[in-house]
């Protein structure tokens, strides 16, 4: 008996240690970028920066504030996210409800038609041709329509209605003379705020983060979302373009280094600030989806 207790003690100790390592593995890169963005880049480059910021220097942020493309990108991203999320909710939620109704003729077939596209699709070139044909290339519609419905989200949403809208409720409403519109808008929607929150969250993050759509379906630099601007600045090494000419060489290099960290913080921050408040919906959504799969 005592050997077994000893076993568990060792297990708990090792397990606790693993969890600490996991947390550091997850959180440290984010923390490091944050402190590097406000520390003098000489210290960052020397590799001495570890836990707390030293020699606070905010020059990078000052430059970012004055660099217009980032803010245009921000504005574009907000536009696309708000409009896209609205369109996605308006298409996904009513459809999911209709598909959850057992008395809907053809419901199996329509579900299969949706699910099939999760595993097989035309690919990017045919989609690109469709977008050109519709004449929406380089417009906001190219950013929001191709991915307006996520079949995974549709399934999550349908599962919610399957298990949260009892058949009796629908039957009772019908007896009271309500038609399907009344039932959906006046009875079902008011008790579905959870799933709507989940859907807003899923769609908004995916649009906010989307990058390839913009690269493929947008042309003008002024219409690019934040993700594309960020990628140009950091991954294509154009960070120094933020700096106006005339700054001297050493100052320039110093700033260019720090700017990279600052730009990452500026682009990731909004989501990470919202995250603690919305994360419970996130987990909820995944679990609703997991019930049915």
């Amino acid at each position, binding site marked *: 008996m005592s050997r077994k207790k000893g076993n568990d003690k060792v297990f708990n100790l090792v397990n606790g240690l693993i969890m600490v390592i996991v947390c550091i593995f997850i959180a440290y890169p984010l923390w490091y970028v944050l402190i590097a963005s406000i520390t003098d880049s000489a210290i960052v480059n020397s590799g001495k920066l570890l836990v707390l910021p030293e020699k606070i220097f905010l020059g990078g942020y000052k430059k970012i504030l004055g660099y217009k493309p980032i803010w245009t990108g921000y504005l574009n991203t907000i536009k696309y996210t708000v409009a896209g999320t609205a369109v996605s909710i308006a298409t996904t939620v009513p459809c999911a409800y209709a598909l959850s109704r057992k008395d809907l003729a053809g419901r199996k077939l329509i579900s299969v038609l949706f699910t099939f596209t999760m595993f097989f699709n035309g690919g990017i070139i045919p989609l690109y041709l469709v977008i050109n044909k519709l004449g929406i290339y380089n417009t906001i519609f190219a950013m929001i329509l191709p991915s307006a419905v996520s079949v995974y989200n549709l399934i999550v949403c349908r599962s919610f209605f399957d298990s949260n809208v009892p058949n009796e409720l629908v039957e009772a409403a019908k007896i009271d003379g309500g038609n399907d519109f009344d039932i959906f808008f006046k009875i079902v929607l008011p008790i579905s705020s959870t799933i709507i929150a989940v859907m807003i969250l899923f769609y908004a993050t995916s649009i906010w983060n989307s990058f390839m759509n913009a690269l493929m379906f947008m042309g003008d630099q002024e219409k690019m979302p934040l993700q594309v601007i960020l990628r140009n600045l950091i991954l294509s090494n154009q960070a120094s373009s933020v700096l106006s000419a005339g700054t001297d060489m050493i100052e320039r290099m110093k700033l260019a280094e720090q700017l990279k960290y600052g730009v990452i913080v500026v682009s990731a921050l909004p989501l990470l600030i919202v995250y603690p408040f919305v994360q419970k919906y996130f987990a909820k959504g995944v*679990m609703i989806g997991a019930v049915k799969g």
Partner: protein
Amino acid sequence: MKFKKAIVHNWRLYVLMLPALIWLIIFAYYPMYGLLISFKDYKGALGIMGSPWAKPIWKHFAEFFTTSIAGNVIRNTLVLSFLTILFSFPIPIVFAILLNQLNGKRKRKLIQTVSYAPYFISNVVVVSILNVICAPSGFVNTIIKGIIGRPLLLMSSAEYFRTMYIVSNIWQTMGFSAIVYIAALTGISPDYYEAAIMDGATKLQRIRHIDLPLIMPTIIIMLVLALGNVMTIGYEKVYLMQAGTNTQVSEIISTYVYKVGLQNAQYSFATAVGLFNSVVNFLILMAANVVAKKTSDISIF
């Protein structure tokens, strides 16, 4: 007749479905019709129907397989995908099980919340973070210098591309993928544990004989789904991680399709390559599903 009546009776439900159905037709099935151009010599002015058939009809497929790059690109796709599944698939399961054994509900909740935060972060930001922390001056290289005495070119050399891709993939998805397993574990009746504790089972024994068998159905479904995406994963991130110096391992089918298709405008050829990719992917999914059904009676359809 009955069917027709049912449709008329529920017409409002079809109206509710209409926007999504229109989307499905235009943005999901109409592009599938566009796949035809992989068997044609597509000319924009002639349209899909008007463009002449390729001669022979499999011309573009044959062309792909005769290019020197085909073998390399296919191999890169398969190696990267299977390595990702090999590492990114089991780790969330282990994490979920260990987290479930941790004492203290609040502690568990906190760690779980931290663990799936990276899932919120875009690929562009993730690759940007990788670039700065793995630069010769970043902290990753500070640690490496401490161990082997010199920094490594982690982001630009082909040697480390797969490692970097997989480690960052684990960072992005570990917590998120664990959610379903954690949910499955919380659903296990405490009776099982109580009985096991009465019999003097250690925590490890409880994991082996209670946790694992009971979450096995979830594991199998998730594995089939993961295999179903084997050829499509990570296209955006791989593209972002490509540097001129690592393309010999980082060029995968989907990034290749993007480049020859949209950057070089070889529509028919790129569509053929993409179609090959989708078909292989679909076959792998079907095979995985059949195996799962035979061995455990679990199917995603």
